């Protein structure tokens, strides 16, 4: 009786060990795969269109001469842009008064009046020195060649583009990054070290989805 019972336990344990090993392997594989996907998502930058080398004359954004002008084009609903707004707040804290800053929230055609009345817009509006505007039907984005939310452009006082790109290190990640440093240097009219940086955020234009690409990706 005792030995039979012991045998049953042994068989049962072996079976469990096998299943456990199998599940553990699948578990690790799944986690590795999931981690890779997430990592890739976080580190994949968005699309950037043909950026104007000079301030477009047709732009309705009131550029003020004598100071560098910072222009961020953002999607009012993009969660990833929260990090960009946070970084913009950091930049403006360091360059307050040294530049004019605008955040243009795109509003697609046919969108309701509350389309851009979001916490993101409120956050941007709360940053001292930042002017929030609505980019009706993404016209300004098109003029400046921005296709991804969080795309930041810096023009020198003469209207020449001196920086174009994102100011976050990865998607949705706040913190010090190359774009942020370059923008800050540009606003202080110092050497930026780089004129381009990847942009991480949602698509502004809707072309990505129409072309079958990923949302929030290039």
């Amino acid at each position: 009786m005792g030995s039979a019972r012991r045998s049953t336990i042994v068989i049962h344990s072996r079976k469990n060990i096998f299943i456990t090993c199998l599940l553990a392997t699948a578990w690790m594989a799944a986690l590795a795969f999931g981690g890779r996907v997430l990592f890739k998502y976080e580190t994949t930058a968005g699309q950037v269109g043909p950026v104007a080398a000079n301030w477009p004359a047709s732009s309705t954004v009131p550029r003020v001469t004598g100071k560098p002008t910072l222009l961020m084009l953002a999607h009012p609903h993009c969660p990833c842009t929260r990090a960009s707004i946070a970084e913009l707040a950091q930049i403006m804290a360091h360059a307050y008064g040294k530049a004019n800053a605008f955040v243009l929230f795109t509003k697609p055609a046919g969108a309701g009046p509350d389309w851009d009345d979001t916490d993101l817009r409120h956050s941007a509006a709360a940053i001292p020195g930042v002017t929030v505007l609505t980019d009706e039907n993404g016209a300004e984005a098109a003029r400046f060649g921005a296709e991804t939310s969080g795309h930041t452009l810096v023009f020198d006082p003469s209207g020449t583009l001196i920086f174009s790109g994102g100011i976050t290190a990865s998607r949705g990640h706040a913190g010090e990054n190359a774009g942020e440093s370059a923008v800050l240097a540009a606003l202080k009219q110092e050497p930026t070290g780089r004129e381009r940086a990847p942009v991480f955020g949602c698509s502004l234009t809707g072309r990505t989805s129409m072309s079958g690409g990923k949302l929030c990706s290039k």
Partner: protein
Amino acid sequence: MFEVGEMTAVPGAAGARAEELFQQHRRQIFRQTDQLFARLMLFQWVACIVLALVVSPQTWDGAASRVHIHVWSALLIGGAISLFPVWMTRVWPGAAVTRHVIAVAQMLMSALLIALTGGRIETHFHVFGSLVILSFYRDWKVLVPATVVVALDHFLRGIYLPYSVYGVLAASPLRSVEHAGWVVFENVFLVISCLRSIKEMRFIANRTAALEASDQRSRQLFDDAPIGMAVVALDTEKFKQVNGSFADMIGYSEEELMARTPLELTHPEDLAETRRSVEAILNGTDRCAVEKRYLRKNGDVLWASRTACVIRDKDGQARDFLVMVEDITERKRAEEAVRETQRALHDAKMEADRANQAKSEFLSRMSHELRTPLNAILGFGQLLERQNPTVQQRARVEHIMSAGRHLLNLINEVLDISRIEAGHLQLSVEPVAVAQVLEEALDLMRPLAADRAMELIVDKELENDLHLLADRQRLKQVLLNLLTNAVKYTAVGGQVRVSVERTHSNITRLVVSDTGAGIPTEKLARLFTPFDRLDVEQSGVEGTGLGLALCQRLMQAMGGNIGVESVVGKGSAFWIELPAVDSPLSALPKRRNAAKDDAVAAGGGKILYIEDNLSNLTLVEQMLAEQPHIELLTAMQGGLGLDLARKHLPDLILLDLHLPDLRGHEVLARLRQDAVTRAIPVVVISADATARQIQRLMTAGAQNYLTKPLDVREFYRVIDETMRSPDRQPEAAVA
């Protein structure tokens, strides 16, 4: 609370039990913590999903949107992270692999949360919190995989995405070390905490094992006790615990007893007493023992000695009763049997007493009825002898007288034996001067010896100083009997000798030897059988066949022995043995000075001393010789004493109880009945010191009672007190 370090390892079986308890406790903690993490994992999973739905529910492409990848990550990756450990807790609860998987999963969950919150530094606290929760396992090893995961995560991110963890573009490798260092810093204290917890768990296990061992011993003592033991709850009054002995005793199983109260098992007649004993204990009596009856399951009565005491809790509150029960049914039966036997014996004794009383009455009546005609026969026979009968008539009168005396002796001896056997023989055992008693006996024997031309010889060793402890009258009776036999059964011209031998320290043997025909050895054993005359009935020698039998009983009654040695053709030697004692007079000179001091202070007077023992007479004579103003009169017979009392009206009478003619209480009664002597104070002097006897004489009118041997100081005190008494007015009585 307690010092863990003071607990030493428990040796032997208790040590193994301690290890078992420790492992059991650890397994329990592992399983409980597994369950905690299973729930935590599920909670974190849900929290991740909620977080993703709130923070980044959708991703946008212009006006179009769809579910954000964070939501899918929370759902799928979070699910993957959580479900496998949860499954492990179900399949491998408490296993080391389970908690290590949980540790890895928990750290991965931290990584996921950090990713979902966009690398918020606050989310990193989840890592530290997770390590603390992992220490709930009290297994420091589980912190290792968790720390490795954190370190790896930081290391890899530090290489590929330094800004995602350090917030800088190019992090130094030392930043990874620094971050891991903080984790290790926390781990150090968590490891210390785990080790301390393990130590405490071992301490608890050791103490629990020791307590279990102690409890086991107590339980074994309880269970294996040869007497019945039970614990009764005070609140429910039911049995809480019983041992096998009690169950066997009462006939119920232990389970059946648990549903009952002791009162339900108690005999109805003992319920009140049982309740009283319980109340006594509750009112403060430490323990209470009663003998009571239980009713067995089969209805039989069980007599038990039940001792109960209260078991109190640590606050001193009475909680239970401890009851110890011993089966005394057999003892009770035996006691009942003894009582029955005692009743039977008492009844038998009463019956025997009644029979004895009837026998005594019969003997008394027979004695009276026989003595009355004998008195006439012997009286008139003596008158005929005095009327100058013819030779033929004298011979006939001699026959009548001889037969009458024979019959009188027979009656006396039968009555004596009867008294001895009935325990009614009154003896006054005291120092007796053997020479005087022997001389009196020889005086009586000399005429018979002269008739038979026999020589009576007494050894010179028999001096006056030799005193034996005996009743004087009965010693004389025995000696007379032995001398009579020696003279009767020895041929004419023979010789009878009385000698003395000291057998050992204080036993003296008196030997009466003769030169008779001797007795065959085979007949010696019959010598002391009543009415067995050893076939000498035809020899013409008169005898009742009761003499030696009576002598034997008298000697035994006096604490002595009797025996015989005989050689056929040479003669027989009958001996008696009695303890030798000092003469009462020998101590007198030593006490003389003291006697003077205590001498009678009263004025002069007459004292009459009625005593048959010459030694006692001499003693009192010498004691009173110191008092010249006191005149001492003596009488050795009761009748003479009564005469002297009437004639001289003494101031005090000293009265012995054993007198040859009248018994002492008879003399006392006559003194009290006589108007002339009624007022004379009487002090009884006797060897009988029993309270009953003293009470009897005092009631009969004695003024005081002195016991032999006499205490001189007491003697003087009593004489003085009695002669000073205002009641002492014999003259007045005469007047």
